[in-house]
């Protein structure tokens, strides 16, 4: 069981695809204008990550080494096509908002990185779990960034959530400030870069504080776990 817990901690925090690996930045920066968009893209990416990891892990012994990258891309592309068709059918408004970024999930290097470095070497259950945790880690950062940019940029939170979850959620929108003039920079691309930089900095500060605290409580100098590298 501790293996699964390690995978979860790695995916959600220590090797978070967005904050540590800094992979898949294109959709992360482009679609994090509002919480709704961020959540939509994050869930779609998570779904593809779980599916791709599981599939590749199941067929990992059949793939010839020389052909593995094309096979991975085919697996990912099929899953993305499925997601795209599903969104087209059931969440058409959100599909229109996210636009090109749904098919572009294929090129999200965070997905192929997990497939190559984890799923191709592990059993199906841990592989699928790793995909889920990495996907959720990515989604969490995406949603947090979306919330920051939406709050600062237009003074609301959870606006148009009905696009994603259905009409029942239309009234969930929180207006933080009436007559807010809007801070356009937060919505525009520079806001995404500033926001992500702040989140990465915040994560590093938290890690440093933690490391210092472990050093203080255990003066034997046992090193804080380094994030597993790719």
């Amino acid at each position, binding site marked *: 069981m501790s293996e699964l817990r390690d995978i979860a901690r790695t995916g959600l925090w220590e090797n978070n695809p967005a904050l540590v690996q800094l992979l898949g930045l294109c959709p992360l920066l482009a679609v994090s204008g509002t919480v709704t968009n961020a959540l939509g893209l994050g869930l779609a990416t998570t779904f593809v990550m779980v599916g791709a990891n599981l599939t590749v892990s199941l067929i990992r012994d059949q793939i010839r080494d020389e052909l593995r990258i094309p096979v991975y891309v085919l697996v990912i592309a099929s899953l993305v096509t499925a997601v795209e068709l599903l969104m087209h059918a059931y969440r058409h408004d959100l599909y229109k908002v996210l636009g090109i970024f749904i098919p572009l999930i294929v090129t999200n290097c965070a997905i192929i990185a997990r497939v190559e470095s984890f799923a191709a070497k592990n059993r199906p259950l841990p592989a699928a779990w790793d995909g889920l945790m990495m996907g959720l880690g990515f989604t969490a950062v995406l949603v947090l960034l979306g919330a920051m940019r939406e709050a600062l940029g237009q003074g609301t939170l959870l606006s148009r959530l009905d696009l994603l979850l259905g009409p029942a959620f239309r009234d969930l929108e929180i207006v933080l400030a009436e007559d807010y*003039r809007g*801070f*356009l*920079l937060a919505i*525009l691309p*520079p806001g995404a870069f*500033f926001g992500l930089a702040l989140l990465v900095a915040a994560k590093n500060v938290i890690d440093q504080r933690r490391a210092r605290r472990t050093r203080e409580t255990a003066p034997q100098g046992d090193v804080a776990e380094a994030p597993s590298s790719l």
Partner: protein
Amino acid sequence: MSLPPHLHTPSSPHIHAPTSVARLMLTVVIALTPAAIAHVWYFGWGLPIQTLIALIFALGGEALMLRLRRRPLTPYLLDGSALVTAVLLAFSLPPYAPWWIAALGALFAIVVVKQLYGGLGYNPFNPAMAAYAMLLISFPQEMTTWALPKVIGGPDLDPLQALDLILFGHAPTTMDALSGATPLDLVKTQLAQDITLGETFSEYAHLFGDFSGRGIEWIGNWILLGGLFLLYKRAIAWQIPLAMLGSLFAIALVFYLADPDSYPSPLFHVFSGAALFGAFFIATDPVSAATTPKGRLIYGAGIGILTYVIRTWGGYPDGVAFAVLLMNMAAPTIDHYTRPRVFGHAPKD
């Protein structure tokens, strides 16, 4: 064995000028003073009030960041760089913009553009111009509402009225009647409607002086004078303003000669908007500009050409701020390729 103190001779140089960051910054502020007085003459008390607001927030932001970064407060707060940033920012703002514009701009310039990159000397971008670009992108309405100069019916407010307007938005008469398009803005919108320059100049004759906007061009003259003072004091390098204004003039001349009805004269370009101000006070920022002699020529020429391109074919009426930021990005590369030959070494072939 050590010599007695009166025989101890330090290594060369033996004669040196007591320059310091604070002295250099003070020189810049002195050079800007005539233009500031002209600004008050033409636009009223907006500029000093904006400078004060920007200065308060710049110093506040700097103190906060220095504390967070555990650096000593006094030497950095008193080096005058925050004052220069505040003055440069205030010069670029509309004189009666609401107070939070100057406050936000000053905080952004100091906290994000300067201190987050490591403080004075480490910032790759000019703080005042980065803040201006941020404000222009985020608040287009506030940032483009320029008051008319007083000589052509702009607002004539006493200091208290100006303060009331900036802090609380209480205008004695409605500001819309008193604000108008700047010459660059007007030329751009008119050209977009297929109105020739000749028609524009005759229809709005009261707005234009000898080369550019009335009042505005006179502030330009005082800026030029301040710039020459900086050159005389060797506070800035001559290559950057010369290359910037020269390239702006040259490229404007080519298009003007080809089609004077669609492209304003080179003098109009030099005396409009932020061209002179940018050439002498912004582009010459010793931290974010290129530093080799040849590199400075390339850097300045790049700003001049980009300014013309953005003004003529871009979305904004003026392009000095964006041109400076773009060339700031290029400055390290320019320096890399224009390093002068090391004395005593053979030239590389």
